[in-house]
């Protein structure tokens, strides 16, 4: 990678800190969390609140399931040449009671994962543009 500045692949979806968090919202009335952010209407059928606060989601959770991508996805995915397969995990956040998908950091294979394993959120480059290096959230096994 070059010395280009780091920039979030999707603006405002996570902090750019050393110990990053996904940025979601929480309904001020019923407590439902939303990721991606929801700040117009609550999707809980028993709640009609329009009042939301922005919150940082838990940055650790348990593996719900996992897989990998052996073939290059279509655009808007930006693939390295040659394409390198990557691992994907669905991680259950306990407090939020929701599952969030994401790539797994480079160097971790499906053989290294199992359902229930603890993962933490980190940032890693997704792809490079002429101006910057786009980073996104990825899941990383917590060293036990």
């Amino acid at each position: 990678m070059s010395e280009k500045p780091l920039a979030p692949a999707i603006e405002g979806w996570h902090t750019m800190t050393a110990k990053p968090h996904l940025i979601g919202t929480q309904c001020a009335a019923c407590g439902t969390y939303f990721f991606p952010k929801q700040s117009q209407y609550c999707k809980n059928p028993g709640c009609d609140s329009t009042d939301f606060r922005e919150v940082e989601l838990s940055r650790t959770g348990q593996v719900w399931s996992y897989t990998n991508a052996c073939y290059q996805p279509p655009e808007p995915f930006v693939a390295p040449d040659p394409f390198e397969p990557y691992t994907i995990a669905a991680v259950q956040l306990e407090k939020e009671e929701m599952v969030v998908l994401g790539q797994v950091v480079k160097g971790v294979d499906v053989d290294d994962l199992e359902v229930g394993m603890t993962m933490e959120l980190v940032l890693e480059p997704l792809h490079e543009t002429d101006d910057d290096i786009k980073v996104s959230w990825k899941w990383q096994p917590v060293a036990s």
Partner: protein
Amino acid sequence: MSNEIAILGAGMHPWGKWGHNFVQYGVAAAREALADAGVPWQDVSFVSGGATVRCGYPGYVAGATFAQALGWQGAEVNTSYAACASGSQALAAARNKILAGECDVALVVGADTTPKGFLAPAKGYRPEDPDWVRFYLGITNPTYFALYARRRMDLYGDTLEDFAAVKVKNSRIGSKNPRARYRKCFTAEDVAASAMVADPLRLMDICATSDGGAALIVSSLDYARKIGKGDAPRVAAISTVTPTFASGVVEMPDIATDSAAADGVEARSFRSTLPLKAYEEAGIGPEDVDLAEVYDLSTALELDWIEDLRLAPRGEAAALLRNGDTSLGGRIPVNVSGGLACFGEAVPAQALAQVCELTWQLRGEAGDRQVEGAKVGITANQGLFGHGSSVIVRT
């Protein structure tokens, strides 16, 4: 039962990948269904089409498109779009019209022509579109199928051999279906030798996209009796319910599930709740079902559906499979049409194709694929954005 309608005729254009105009597939299916029913086209007073979103404006107004192609005769038309459940929703529209007494006999038809490769979202920077987000982050349709499959392996001990056995079973029975696109009998070795797509799923575990068309002629029970078809199979239930919050299984195209953190909210599985309304409406239970046509977008997903339909306790579908219970001649045959494994998916036609198969089975006309004494069949499918359906057909 007062809310039943009769299935007088079923028809399908064979599935394949020809790239022809979708209208010709639908017309061929409709003509076959009309001939099967012995009903003149002029007697059809409602045409209910499943929309295709890949074939331009004629696809958005499929009901009118097919009515025009068959020859305008003044019928009322409807078009339904519900992703993979489009056919069932079109069928539900026809049922409502018939049960309201506004129509005696209706044509329900869906057809599609599919592009090659991945179905890609629109371009640009569009983070408000979940379909754009997931492709940008590298999450494709097989990702979701593979997450479900891997979870079965880690939770229930399902194996790669189990998944391959689903493909072997479906290809063996599908080889006897002249309407299927893939008619080769594949072996477990063939599956194991195919390329890994999304671990643990290989190319032969995942269904293709196909061209195809399917149609039904449905009527009031009075009309069926009047033309001497009082014993025709009946649609006993149609469930097209949405998920119930909080949807706890991550579904295409979302990057996250609903949160179940609010008081009184629990995480639920959409697939699992979908058939409940169908069973309730038909007044029967899983123990009454003789065969099932389920949406095997992947081999492993067939096993999920078997449990979602309550045909096996959670985690025990693979045991049924290994025991031969879900094969032709077994206790509860699943996908005796050959399923998506042998057809590939033609979205607006697929839910109707499932009902076509049940119709032929319940009439005892399925030939080499016949389930002996079949009296009750159930379908299940699921698509994008909270769409899904389950239809019960009985004699």
